[in-house]
Protein backbone atom coordinates (compact mmCIF):
# COMPACT_ATOMS: atom_id res chain seq x y z
CA UNK A 1 0.00 0.00 0.00
CA UNK A 2 1.21 3.44 -0.86
CA UNK A 3 2.03 5.82 1.94
CA UNK A 4 1.04 9.45 1.55
CA UNK A 5 -1.78 11.23 -0.16
CA UNK A 6 -2.42 10.05 -3.66
CA UNK A 7 -5.47 10.74 -5.70
CA UNK A 8 -7.62 8.49 -7.88
CA UNK A 9 -11.00 8.76 -9.56
CA UNK A 10 -14.08 6.55 -9.81
CA UNK A 11 -17.62 6.69 -11.24
CA UNK A 12 -19.11 5.44 -8.03
CA UNK A 13 -17.63 5.47 -4.56
CA UNK A 14 -19.44 3.16 -2.16
CA UNK A 15 -18.66 3.80 1.51
CA UNK A 16 -19.17 0.76 3.73
CA UNK A 17 -19.35 -2.88 2.66
CA UNK A 18 -22.40 -4.14 4.58
CA UNK A 19 -25.40 -5.70 2.84
CA UNK A 20 -26.28 -2.26 1.56
CA UNK A 21 -22.87 -1.27 0.23
CA UNK A 22 -21.57 -4.52 -1.16
CA UNK A 23 -24.79 -5.19 -3.05
CA UNK A 24 -24.74 -1.65 -4.46
CA UNK A 25 -21.13 -2.13 -5.55
CA UNK A 26 -21.73 -5.50 -7.17
CA UNK A 27 -24.81 -4.24 -8.99
CA UNK A 28 -22.93 -1.14 -10.15
CA UNK A 29 -20.15 -3.38 -11.42
CA UNK A 30 -22.67 -5.49 -13.32
CA UNK A 31 -23.95 -2.31 -14.91
CA UNK A 32 -20.45 -1.56 -16.16
CA UNK A 33 -19.84 1.33 -13.85
CA UNK A 34 -16.35 1.95 -12.54
CA UNK A 35 -16.90 1.35 -8.82
CA UNK A 36 -14.77 1.56 -5.68
CA UNK A 37 -15.93 0.02 -2.42
CA UNK A 38 -14.25 1.24 0.72
CA UNK A 39 -14.55 -0.56 4.04
CA UNK A 40 -12.81 0.24 7.30
CA UNK A 41 -13.42 -2.99 9.15
CA UNK A 42 -14.80 -6.18 7.57
CA UNK A 43 -16.56 -7.12 4.32
CA UNK A 44 -20.20 -7.94 4.94
CA UNK A 45 -20.62 -5.24 7.56
CA UNK A 46 -22.62 -5.66 10.75
CA UNK A 47 -24.94 -8.20 9.25
CA UNK A 48 -22.47 -10.84 8.20
CA UNK A 49 -19.86 -10.28 10.86
CA UNK A 50 -21.70 -9.32 14.04
CA UNK A 51 -25.43 -9.39 13.37
CA UNK A 52 -27.80 -11.47 11.25
CA UNK A 53 -25.50 -14.33 10.48
CA UNK A 54 -23.74 -14.91 13.81
CA UNK A 55 -27.01 -14.56 15.71
CA UNK A 56 -28.83 -17.02 13.46
CA UNK A 57 -25.96 -19.50 13.68
CA UNK A 58 -26.01 -19.36 17.47
CA UNK A 59 -29.81 -19.65 17.45
CA UNK A 60 -29.71 -22.86 15.40
CA UNK A 61 -26.97 -24.40 17.49
CA UNK A 62 -28.51 -23.51 20.84
CA UNK A 63 -31.90 -24.74 19.61
CA UNK A 64 -30.49 -28.09 18.66
CA UNK A 65 -28.76 -28.52 22.01
CA UNK A 66 -31.90 -27.53 23.85
CA UNK A 67 -34.34 -29.57 21.79
CA UNK A 68 -32.30 -32.71 22.01
CA UNK A 69 -32.33 -32.40 25.77
CA UNK A 70 -36.08 -31.85 25.89
CA UNK A 71 -37.52 -34.47 23.56
CA UNK A 72 -38.53 -37.13 26.06
CA UNK A 73 -42.06 -36.73 24.74
CA UNK A 74 -40.78 -38.13 21.44
CA UNK A 75 -38.93 -40.94 23.18
CA UNK A 76 -35.54 -39.26 22.78
CA UNK A 77 -33.29 -39.14 25.83
CA UNK A 78 -30.15 -37.03 25.66
CA UNK A 79 -28.16 -34.75 27.86
CA UNK A 80 -26.14 -32.64 25.44
CA UNK A 81 -22.94 -30.93 26.54
CA UNK A 82 -22.01 -27.69 24.88
CA UNK A 83 -18.47 -26.48 24.31
CA UNK A 84 -19.12 -22.78 23.87
CA UNK A 85 -15.75 -22.01 22.33
CA UNK A 86 -16.33 -24.67 19.68
CA UNK A 87 -19.84 -23.43 18.99
CA UNK A 88 -18.52 -19.90 18.56
CA UNK A 89 -15.71 -21.27 16.41
CA UNK A 90 -18.22 -23.01 14.17
CA UNK A 91 -20.16 -19.76 13.91
CA UNK A 92 -16.97 -17.90 12.99
CA UNK A 93 -16.32 -20.44 10.24
CA UNK A 94 -19.74 -19.73 8.75
CA UNK A 95 -19.04 -16.01 8.90
CA UNK A 96 -15.64 -16.42 7.24
CA UNK A 97 -17.10 -18.46 4.43
CA UNK A 98 -19.69 -15.78 3.71
CA UNK A 99 -17.46 -12.74 4.03
CA UNK A 100 -14.85 -14.44 1.85
CA UNK A 101 -17.62 -14.98 -0.67
CA UNK A 102 -18.56 -11.31 -0.62
CA UNK A 103 -15.01 -10.26 -1.33
CA UNK A 104 -14.73 -12.72 -4.19
CA UNK A 105 -18.05 -11.72 -5.73
CA UNK A 106 -17.19 -8.04 -5.53
CA UNK A 107 -13.92 -8.63 -7.35
CA UNK A 108 -15.53 -10.92 -9.91
CA UNK A 109 -17.99 -8.15 -10.73
CA UNK A 110 -15.18 -5.69 -11.29
CA UNK A 111 -15.43 -3.83 -8.01
CA UNK A 112 -12.27 -2.07 -6.82
CA UNK A 113 -11.80 -2.81 -3.12
CA UNK A 114 -10.16 -0.31 -0.81
CA UNK A 115 -9.45 -0.66 2.89
CA UNK A 116 -9.79 2.39 5.06
CA UNK A 117 -12.17 4.89 6.59
CA UNK A 118 -13.76 7.35 4.19
CA UNK A 119 -14.68 10.93 4.95
CA UNK A 120 -16.00 13.52 2.55
CA UNK A 121 -13.51 16.19 1.47
CA UNK A 122 -15.97 17.98 -0.79
CA UNK A 123 -19.00 17.45 -3.00
CA UNK A 124 -17.10 15.12 -5.25
CA UNK A 125 -14.16 13.85 -3.31
CA UNK A 126 -13.47 11.77 -0.24
CA UNK A 127 -10.40 11.09 1.83
CA UNK A 128 -9.70 7.45 2.62
CA UNK A 129 -7.76 7.11 5.84
CA UNK A 130 -5.91 3.83 5.92
CA UNK A 131 -5.84 1.67 8.97
CA UNK A 132 -2.40 0.98 10.31
CA UNK A 133 0.18 3.33 11.72
CA UNK A 134 1.73 5.45 9.00
CA UNK A 135 -0.44 4.01 6.27
CA UNK A 136 -1.51 7.50 5.36
CA UNK A 137 -4.53 8.38 3.33
CA UNK A 138 -5.60 8.94 -0.23
CA UNK A 139 -8.16 11.02 -2.00
CA UNK A 140 -10.79 9.57 -4.30
CA UNK A 141 -12.73 11.75 -6.71
CA UNK A 142 -16.17 10.45 -7.62
CA UNK A 143 -19.05 11.17 -9.95
CA UNK A 144 -21.51 9.52 -7.58
CA UNK A 145 -21.23 8.32 -4.00
CA UNK A 146 -23.30 5.83 -2.06
CA UNK A 147 -23.19 6.20 1.71
CA UNK A 148 -23.76 2.86 3.41
CA UNK A 149 -22.00 3.23 6.71
CA UNK A 150 -24.66 1.43 8.71
CA UNK A 151 -25.36 1.66 12.40
CA UNK A 152 -23.93 0.78 15.79
CA UNK A 153 -25.52 -0.11 19.12
CA UNK A 154 -26.70 2.76 21.28
CA UNK A 155 -24.91 3.04 24.59
CA UNK A 156 -27.03 3.53 27.68
CA UNK A 157 -25.48 6.11 30.00
CA UNK A 158 -23.58 4.28 32.68
CA UNK A 159 -22.98 1.20 30.54
CA UNK A 160 -19.73 1.55 28.64
CA UNK A 161 -19.21 -1.19 26.03
CA UNK A 162 -15.52 -0.90 26.79
CA UNK A 163 -16.03 -2.31 30.29
CA UNK A 164 -15.64 -6.05 30.48
CA UNK A 165 -18.95 -7.18 31.98
CA UNK A 166 -20.92 -4.84 29.71
CA UNK A 167 -21.64 -6.47 26.36
CA UNK A 168 -23.12 -5.32 23.10
CA UNK A 169 -24.68 -7.92 20.82
CA UNK A 170 -21.43 -8.39 18.97
CA UNK A 171 -19.51 -9.22 22.09
CA UNK A 172 -22.30 -11.44 23.37
CA UNK A 173 -22.04 -13.49 20.19
CA UNK A 174 -18.33 -14.04 20.72
CA UNK A 175 -18.15 -15.23 24.33
CA UNK A 176 -16.07 -18.31 24.83
CA UNK A 177 -17.94 -19.49 27.87
CA UNK A 178 -21.63 -19.69 28.61
CA UNK A 179 -22.25 -17.10 31.33
CA UNK A 180 -23.96 -18.44 34.43
CA UNK A 181 -26.26 -15.45 34.51
CA UNK A 182 -27.00 -12.51 32.28
CA UNK A 183 -29.08 -9.37 32.54
CA UNK A 184 -30.33 -8.20 29.15
CA UNK A 185 -31.34 -4.56 28.88
CA UNK A 186 -33.96 -4.27 26.13
CA UNK A 187 -36.64 -6.71 24.95
CA UNK A 188 -36.51 -5.72 21.28
CA UNK A 189 -35.74 -8.34 18.66
CA UNK A 190 -32.00 -8.45 19.29
CA UNK A 191 -32.46 -8.74 23.05
CA UNK A 192 -35.10 -11.41 22.69
CA UNK A 193 -33.18 -13.46 20.12
CA UNK A 194 -30.11 -13.50 22.36
CA UNK A 195 -32.18 -14.14 25.50
CA UNK A 196 -33.34 -17.34 23.81
CA UNK A 197 -29.82 -18.37 22.81
CA UNK A 198 -28.42 -18.00 26.30
CA UNK A 199 -31.43 -19.47 28.11
CA UNK A 200 -31.17 -22.54 25.89
CA UNK A 201 -27.48 -22.84 26.64
CA UNK A 202 -28.25 -22.82 30.35
CA UNK A 203 -27.70 -19.19 31.34
CA UNK A 204 -29.97 -17.69 33.96
CA UNK A 205 -31.44 -14.80 31.96
CA UNK A 206 -33.19 -11.68 33.25
CA UNK A 207 -34.63 -9.21 30.76
CA UNK A 208 -35.36 -5.63 31.82
CA UNK A 209 -37.33 -3.42 29.46
CA UNK A 210 -38.42 0.17 29.78
CA UNK A 211 -41.69 -0.34 27.91
CA UNK A 212 -44.38 -2.72 29.03
CA UNK A 213 -43.96 -5.74 26.79
CA UNK A 214 -41.59 -7.87 24.77
CA UNK A 215 -41.00 -6.92 21.13
CA UNK A 216 -42.51 -3.44 21.32
CA UNK A 217 -43.94 -2.53 17.94
CA UNK A 218 -45.34 -5.98 17.26
CA UNK A 219 -48.98 -6.75 17.89
CA UNK A 220 -49.72 -8.24 21.31
CA UNK A 221 -50.89 -11.57 20.06
CA UNK A 222 -47.73 -12.00 17.99
CA UNK A 223 -45.47 -11.21 20.93
CA UNK A 224 -47.42 -13.33 23.40
CA UNK A 225 -46.26 -16.80 22.26
CA UNK A 226 -42.66 -15.55 22.30
CA UNK A 227 -42.96 -14.30 25.86
CA UNK A 228 -44.72 -17.47 26.94
CA UNK A 229 -42.00 -19.70 25.53
CA UNK A 230 -39.30 -17.47 27.00
CA UNK A 231 -40.89 -17.81 30.41
CA UNK A 232 -41.01 -21.58 29.99
CA UNK A 233 -37.28 -21.40 29.32
CA UNK A 234 -36.92 -19.68 32.69
CA UNK A 235 -36.35 -16.15 31.43
CA UNK A 236 -37.37 -13.59 33.99
CA UNK A 237 -38.99 -10.36 32.73
CA UNK A 238 -39.19 -6.96 34.36
CA UNK A 239 -41.08 -4.31 32.43
CA UNK A 240 -41.24 -0.58 33.01
CA UNK A 241 -37.65 -0.64 34.24
CA UNK A 242 -34.93 1.64 32.85
CA UNK A 243 -31.36 0.51 33.41
CA UNK A 244 -29.49 3.18 35.31
CA UNK A 245 -26.12 1.70 36.23
CA UNK A 246 -24.12 -1.28 37.38
CA UNK A 247 -21.38 -2.11 39.84
CA UNK A 248 -19.16 -5.02 40.69
CA UNK A 249 -20.41 -7.14 43.55
CA UNK A 250 -18.98 -10.41 44.73
CA UNK A 251 -17.85 -12.42 41.74
CA UNK A 252 -20.26 -10.64 39.43
CA UNK A 253 -22.14 -7.40 39.00
CA UNK A 254 -25.34 -5.77 40.13
CA UNK A 255 -27.44 -3.95 37.57
CA UNK A 256 -29.61 -1.13 38.82
CA UNK A 257 -32.90 -0.15 37.20
CA UNK A 258 -35.45 2.48 37.94
CA UNK A 259 -39.19 2.48 37.27
CA UNK A 260 -41.47 5.41 36.43
CA UNK A 261 -41.93 6.23 40.09
CA UNK A 262 -38.20 6.35 40.67
CA UNK A 263 -38.14 3.07 42.57
CA UNK A 264 -34.85 1.29 42.21
CA UNK A 265 -34.46 -2.47 41.62
CA UNK A 266 -31.27 -4.52 41.52
CA UNK A 267 -30.44 -7.59 39.50
CA UNK A 268 -27.34 -9.66 40.06
CA UNK A 269 -25.60 -11.36 37.14
CA UNK A 270 -22.26 -12.33 35.69
CA UNK A 271 -22.64 -9.96 32.74
CA UNK A 272 -25.02 -7.42 31.26
CA UNK A 273 -25.98 -7.20 27.61
CA UNK A 274 -27.29 -3.85 26.41
CA UNK A 275 -29.53 -4.02 23.33
CA UNK A 276 -31.69 -0.93 23.29
CA UNK A 277 -31.48 0.09 19.66
CA UNK A 278 -29.05 1.27 17.03
CA UNK A 279 -27.85 4.66 15.86
CA UNK A 280 -26.47 5.73 12.47
CA UNK A 281 -22.73 5.89 11.79
CA UNK A 282 -22.64 9.37 10.29
CA UNK A 283 -20.53 11.31 12.79
CA UNK A 284 -17.10 10.54 11.34
CA UNK A 285 -18.07 10.99 7.69
CA UNK A 286 -17.65 14.79 7.45
CA UNK A 287 -20.98 14.91 5.63
CA UNK A 288 -20.89 18.71 5.89
CA UNK A 289 -18.02 18.83 3.43
CA UNK A 290 -20.34 17.34 0.82
CA UNK A 291 -23.41 19.25 1.91
CA UNK A 292 -25.36 16.10 2.83
CA UNK A 293 -28.03 16.73 5.45
CA UNK A 294 -29.00 14.51 8.34
CA UNK A 295 -32.06 14.59 10.58
CA UNK A 296 -31.96 15.31 14.33
CA UNK A 297 -30.99 11.69 15.08
CA UNK A 298 -28.17 11.67 12.54
CA UNK A 299 -30.00 9.58 9.92
CA UNK A 300 -29.77 10.64 6.27
CA UNK A 301 -33.17 11.31 4.63
CA UNK A 302 -33.54 9.93 1.10
CA UNK A 303 -36.14 9.84 -1.66
CA UNK A 304 -37.56 6.90 -3.62
CA UNK A 305 -34.39 6.75 -5.76
CA UNK A 306 -32.26 6.49 -2.62
CA UNK A 307 -30.91 10.02 -3.23
CA UNK A 308 -29.88 12.39 -0.44
CA UNK A 309 -30.46 16.12 -0.71
CA UNK A 310 -27.31 16.18 -2.86
CA UNK A 311 -28.44 14.70 -6.17
CA UNK A 312 -25.34 12.66 -6.98
CA UNK A 313 -24.91 11.30 -3.45
CA UNK A 314 -27.09 8.37 -2.45
CA UNK A 315 -27.57 6.84 0.98
CA UNK A 316 -28.83 3.35 1.73
CA UNK A 317 -29.35 0.94 4.58
CA UNK A 318 -29.33 1.53 8.32
CA UNK A 319 -27.82 4.99 7.89
CA UNK A 320 -31.14 6.13 6.39
CA UNK A 321 -33.23 4.95 9.36
CA UNK A 322 -36.04 2.48 9.94
CA UNK A 323 -36.67 -0.19 8.92
CA UNK A 324 -33.06 -1.09 9.74
CA UNK A 325 -32.96 -4.45 8.03
CA UNK A 326 -30.34 -6.11 5.90
CA UNK A 327 -32.69 -6.90 3.02
CA UNK A 328 -33.90 -3.32 2.91
CA UNK A 329 -30.29 -2.15 2.76
CA UNK A 330 -29.64 -4.55 -0.14
CA UNK A 331 -32.73 -3.46 -2.05
CA UNK A 332 -31.79 0.19 -1.61
CA UNK A 333 -28.26 -0.62 -2.73
CA UNK A 334 -29.53 -2.27 -5.86
CA UNK A 335 -31.81 0.65 -6.66
CA UNK A 336 -29.09 3.23 -5.99
CA UNK A 337 -26.75 1.45 -8.41
CA UNK A 338 -29.44 1.18 -11.07
CA UNK A 339 -30.46 4.81 -10.72
CA UNK A 340 -26.84 5.88 -11.11
CA UNK A 341 -26.61 3.72 -14.22
CA UNK A 342 -29.63 5.56 -15.63
CA UNK A 343 -32.16 2.77 -15.22
CA UNK A 344 -35.80 3.55 -14.38
CA UNK A 345 -35.43 1.93 -11.00
CA UNK A 346 -37.19 3.05 -7.84
CA UNK A 347 -38.05 1.94 -4.33
CA UNK A 348 -41.59 1.10 -5.31
CA UNK A 349 -42.11 -2.10 -3.33
CA UNK A 350 -45.48 -2.59 -1.72
CA UNK A 351 -44.35 -4.23 1.46
CA UNK A 352 -41.22 -5.07 3.44
CA UNK A 353 -41.09 -8.45 5.14
CA UNK A 354 -39.39 -8.76 8.50
CA UNK A 355 -38.55 -11.68 10.70
CA UNK A 356 -37.71 -12.15 14.35
CA UNK A 357 -35.81 -15.36 14.97
CA UNK A 358 -37.13 -15.99 18.45
CA UNK A 359 -38.78 -19.24 19.55
CA UNK A 360 -41.34 -19.25 18.00
CA UNK A 361 -40.34 -17.08 15.07
CA UNK A 362 -42.29 -14.05 13.90
CA UNK A 363 -42.71 -13.07 10.27
CA UNK A 364 -44.59 -10.01 9.11
CA UNK A 365 -45.18 -8.23 5.84
CA UNK A 366 -47.40 -5.33 4.86
CA UNK A 367 -50.26 -4.01 6.94
CA UNK A 368 -51.82 -5.18 10.14
CA UNK A 369 -55.60 -5.09 10.43
CA UNK A 370 -55.39 -1.79 12.32
CA UNK A 371 -53.08 -0.25 9.73
CA UNK A 372 -55.37 -1.34 6.92
CA UNK A 373 -58.29 0.36 8.65
CA UNK A 374 -56.30 3.54 9.19
CA UNK A 375 -55.49 3.63 5.51
CA UNK A 376 -59.10 3.46 4.50
CA UNK A 377 -59.41 -0.20 3.60
CA UNK A 378 -62.19 -2.45 4.87
CA UNK A 379 -60.09 -5.34 6.07
CA UNK A 380 -61.11 -8.98 5.76
CA UNK A 381 -59.02 -11.04 8.16
CA UNK A 382 -58.38 -14.78 8.17
CA UNK A 383 -56.43 -16.90 10.60
CA UNK A 384 -55.14 -20.42 10.93
CA UNK A 385 -53.65 -21.79 14.14
CA UNK A 386 -50.64 -24.08 13.81
CA UNK A 387 -52.14 -26.55 16.27
CA UNK A 388 -54.54 -27.48 13.46
CA UNK A 389 -51.64 -28.00 11.03
CA UNK A 390 -50.61 -31.59 10.45
CA UNK A 391 -47.09 -30.59 9.56
CA UNK A 392 -46.70 -28.40 12.63
CA UNK A 393 -47.83 -31.20 14.92
CA UNK A 394 -45.38 -33.62 13.32
CA UNK A 395 -42.51 -31.26 14.11
CA UNK A 396 -43.53 -30.89 17.73
CA UNK A 397 -43.86 -27.12 17.25
CA UNK A 398 -47.48 -26.16 16.91
CA UNK A 399 -47.75 -22.87 18.76
CA UNK A 400 -48.77 -19.70 16.93
CA UNK A 401 -50.85 -18.85 13.90
CA UNK A 402 -50.96 -17.30 10.44
CA UNK A 403 -53.04 -14.17 9.99
CA UNK A 404 -53.78 -12.69 6.62
CA UNK A 405 -55.23 -9.23 6.03
CA UNK A 406 -56.96 -8.30 2.78
CA UNK A 407 -59.19 -5.60 1.41
CA UNK A 408 -62.67 -7.05 1.69
CA UNK A 409 -64.33 -5.56 -1.42
CA UNK A 410 -61.52 -6.33 -3.85
CA UNK A 411 -59.90 -9.27 -2.06
CA UNK A 412 -56.40 -7.80 -2.55
CA UNK A 413 -53.89 -8.93 0.05
CA UNK A 414 -52.56 -6.15 2.23
CA UNK A 415 -50.51 -7.91 4.85
CA UNK A 416 -49.76 -11.01 6.86
CA UNK A 417 -48.54 -11.73 10.36
CA UNK A 418 -47.18 -15.09 11.32
CA UNK A 419 -45.92 -16.39 14.63
CA UNK A 420 -44.84 -20.00 14.74
CA UNK A 421 -42.50 -22.55 13.18
CA UNK A 422 -40.57 -21.28 10.13
CA UNK A 423 -42.51 -18.00 10.17
CA UNK A 424 -39.44 -16.35 8.63
CA UNK A 425 -39.76 -18.60 5.57
CA UNK A 426 -43.55 -18.70 5.33
CA UNK A 427 -43.73 -14.93 5.08
CA UNK A 428 -41.97 -15.09 1.69
CA UNK A 429 -45.03 -16.38 -0.15
CA UNK A 430 -47.11 -13.59 1.39
CA UNK A 431 -44.57 -11.02 0.30
CA UNK A 432 -44.74 -12.21 -3.29
CA UNK A 433 -48.53 -12.33 -3.13
CA UNK A 434 -48.70 -8.71 -2.01
CA UNK A 435 -46.21 -7.53 -4.63
CA UNK A 436 -48.14 -9.36 -7.34
CA UNK A 437 -51.49 -7.87 -6.37
CA UNK A 438 -52.84 -11.30 -5.51
CA UNK A 439 -56.29 -11.73 -3.98
CA UNK A 440 -57.41 -14.01 -1.17
CA UNK A 441 -58.91 -16.26 -3.78
CA UNK A 442 -55.60 -16.54 -5.63
CA UNK A 443 -53.85 -17.76 -2.47
CA UNK A 444 -56.73 -20.03 -1.46
CA UNK A 445 -56.96 -21.62 -4.92
CA UNK A 446 -53.24 -22.35 -5.18
CA UNK A 447 -52.49 -25.98 -4.35
CA UNK A 448 -50.11 -26.23 -1.40
CA UNK A 449 -48.13 -29.37 -0.71
CA UNK A 450 -49.33 -31.65 2.07
CA UNK A 451 -48.15 -31.85 4.75
CA UNK A 452 -46.40 -28.49 4.96
CA UNK A 453 -46.54 -25.44 7.18
CA UNK A 454 -47.32 -23.31 4.15
CA UNK A 455 -50.75 -24.92 3.91
CA UNK A 456 -51.53 -22.67 6.87
CA UNK A 457 -51.26 -19.64 4.60
CA UNK A 458 -53.80 -21.11 2.20
CA UNK A 459 -56.11 -22.04 5.07
CA UNK A 460 -55.91 -18.51 6.49
CA UNK A 461 -56.94 -17.15 3.10
CA UNK A 462 -59.82 -19.62 2.96
CA UNK A 463 -60.79 -18.62 6.47
CA UNK A 464 -60.96 -14.97 5.42
CA UNK A 465 -63.21 -16.03 2.55
CA UNK A 466 -65.43 -18.00 4.90
CA UNK A 467 -64.73 -21.48 3.60
CA UNK A 468 -61.76 -22.91 5.43
CA UNK A 469 -61.61 -26.69 5.55
CA UNK A 470 -59.48 -27.23 8.64
CA UNK A 471 -60.86 -24.57 10.95
CA UNK A 472 -64.32 -23.34 11.75
CA UNK A 473 -64.96 -20.17 9.82
CA UNK A 474 -65.52 -16.93 11.63
Amino acid sequence: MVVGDISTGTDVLVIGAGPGGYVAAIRAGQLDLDVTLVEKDAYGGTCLNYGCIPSKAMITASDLAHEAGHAEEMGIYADPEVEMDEMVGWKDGVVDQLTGGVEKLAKANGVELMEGRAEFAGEDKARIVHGGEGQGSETVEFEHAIVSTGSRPIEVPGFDFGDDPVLDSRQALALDEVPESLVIVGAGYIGMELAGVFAKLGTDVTVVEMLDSVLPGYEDDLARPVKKKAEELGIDFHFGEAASGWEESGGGITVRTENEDGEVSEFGAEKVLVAVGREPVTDTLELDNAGVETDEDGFIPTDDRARTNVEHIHAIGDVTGEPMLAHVASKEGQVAAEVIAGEPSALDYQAVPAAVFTDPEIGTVGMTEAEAEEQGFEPAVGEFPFNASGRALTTGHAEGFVRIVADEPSGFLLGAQIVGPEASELIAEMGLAIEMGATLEDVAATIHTHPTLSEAVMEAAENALGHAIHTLNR
Partner: protein
Amino acid sequence: AEEVSTGEGRVFAAPSARRVARELGVDIAAVEGTGPSGRVTEQDVRQAAESGGEASGDATDEAPAEAEAPTGEVGATREQDAQPTTATAGATGGPAPE
Protein backbone atom coordinates in the same frame (compact mmCIF):
# COMPACT_ATOMS: atom_id res chain seq x y z
CA ALA B 1 -63.00 -3.85 -14.79
CA GLU B 2 -63.96 -2.87 -11.29
CA GLU B 3 -62.49 0.03 -9.40
CA VAL B 4 -59.12 -0.48 -7.85
CA SER B 5 -59.36 -0.44 -4.08
CA THR B 6 -59.50 3.01 -2.58
CA GLY B 7 -57.06 2.87 0.31
CA GLU B 8 -54.75 5.83 -0.22
CA GLY B 9 -54.69 5.34 -3.97
CA ARG B 10 -52.72 2.14 -3.66
CA VAL B 11 -52.11 0.53 -7.03
CA PHE B 12 -52.28 -3.23 -7.33
CA ALA B 13 -49.86 -4.31 -10.03
CA ALA B 14 -46.97 -6.73 -10.32
CA PRO B 15 -43.42 -5.38 -10.00
CA SER B 16 -42.88 -6.00 -13.71
CA ALA B 17 -45.90 -3.88 -14.60
CA ARG B 18 -44.74 -1.13 -12.27
CA ARG B 19 -41.30 -1.15 -13.87
CA VAL B 20 -42.77 -0.94 -17.36
CA ALA B 21 -44.85 2.04 -16.23
CA ARG B 22 -41.73 3.87 -15.08
CA GLU B 23 -39.94 2.91 -18.25
CA LEU B 24 -42.73 4.22 -20.46
CA GLY B 25 -43.38 7.24 -18.32
CA VAL B 26 -46.91 6.16 -17.48
CA ASP B 27 -48.51 7.21 -14.20
CA ILE B 28 -49.67 3.77 -13.15
CA ALA B 29 -52.12 5.21 -10.62
CA ALA B 30 -54.10 6.61 -13.54
CA VAL B 31 -54.20 3.36 -15.52
CA GLU B 32 -57.45 1.44 -15.56
CA GLY B 33 -56.77 -2.15 -14.57
CA THR B 34 -58.35 -5.04 -16.43
CA GLY B 35 -57.06 -7.80 -14.18
CA PRO B 36 -59.00 -9.46 -11.39
CA SER B 37 -60.52 -6.84 -9.05
CA GLY B 38 -59.02 -4.15 -11.25
CA ARG B 39 -55.42 -5.26 -10.98
CA VAL B 40 -53.24 -3.33 -13.42
CA THR B 41 -51.45 -5.62 -15.84
CA GLU B 42 -48.37 -4.96 -17.92
CA GLN B 43 -50.65 -5.01 -20.95
CA ASP B 44 -52.82 -2.28 -19.40
CA VAL B 45 -49.73 -0.14 -18.88
CA ARG B 46 -48.55 -0.59 -22.46
CA GLN B 47 -51.99 0.22 -23.78
CA ALA B 48 -52.11 3.37 -21.66
CA ALA B 49 -48.73 4.37 -23.06
CA GLU B 50 -49.88 3.83 -26.62
CA SER B 51 -53.05 5.82 -26.12
CA GLY B 52 -50.79 8.52 -24.71
CA GLY B 53 -51.63 11.29 -22.34
CA GLU B 54 -50.64 9.35 -19.24
CA ALA B 55 -47.03 10.34 -19.29
CA SER B 56 -46.00 12.06 -16.11
CA GLY B 57 -42.86 14.09 -16.33
CA ASP B 58 -41.81 13.03 -12.90
CA ALA B 59 -41.52 9.37 -13.69
CA THR B 60 -39.33 9.91 -16.69
CA ASP B 61 -36.92 12.57 -15.61
CA GLU B 62 -33.95 10.30 -15.75
CA ALA B 63 -35.45 7.18 -17.12
CA PRO B 64 -34.32 6.64 -20.65
CA ALA B 65 -37.52 5.34 -22.18
CA GLU B 66 -35.71 2.83 -24.29
CA ALA B 67 -38.27 0.21 -23.53
CA GLU B 68 -37.50 -3.26 -24.68
CA ALA B 69 -39.82 -3.97 -27.54
CA PRO B 70 -43.10 -5.03 -26.00
CA THR B 71 -42.80 -8.77 -25.74
CA GLY B 72 -46.53 -9.02 -25.84
CA GLU B 73 -47.27 -12.54 -26.86
CA VAL B 74 -46.46 -15.26 -24.48
CA GLY B 75 -45.79 -18.84 -25.25
CA ALA B 76 -48.63 -21.24 -25.68
CA THR B 77 -51.59 -20.89 -23.37
CA ARG B 78 -50.15 -18.76 -20.63
CA GLU B 79 -51.36 -15.30 -19.99
CA GLN B 80 -50.40 -13.11 -17.16
CA ASP B 81 -54.03 -12.83 -16.15
CA ALA B 82 -54.77 -16.50 -16.17
CA GLN B 83 -54.73 -16.76 -12.42
CA PRO B 84 -56.73 -19.22 -10.42
CA THR B 85 -59.32 -16.47 -10.03
CA THR B 86 -60.82 -17.32 -13.37
CA ALA B 87 -62.25 -20.60 -12.22
CA THR B 88 -64.37 -21.36 -15.21
CA ALA B 89 -64.36 -24.20 -17.62
CA GLY B 90 -61.59 -25.37 -19.80
CA ALA B 91 -58.11 -26.34 -19.01
CA THR B 92 -57.40 -29.69 -17.56
CA GLY B 93 -55.01 -30.16 -14.73
CA GLY B 94 -51.60 -28.69 -15.11
CA PRO B 95 -48.57 -30.74 -15.89
CA ALA B 96 -48.48 -33.37 -13.19
CA PRO B 97 -45.22 -34.17 -11.52
CA GLU B 98 -43.94 -37.64 -11.95
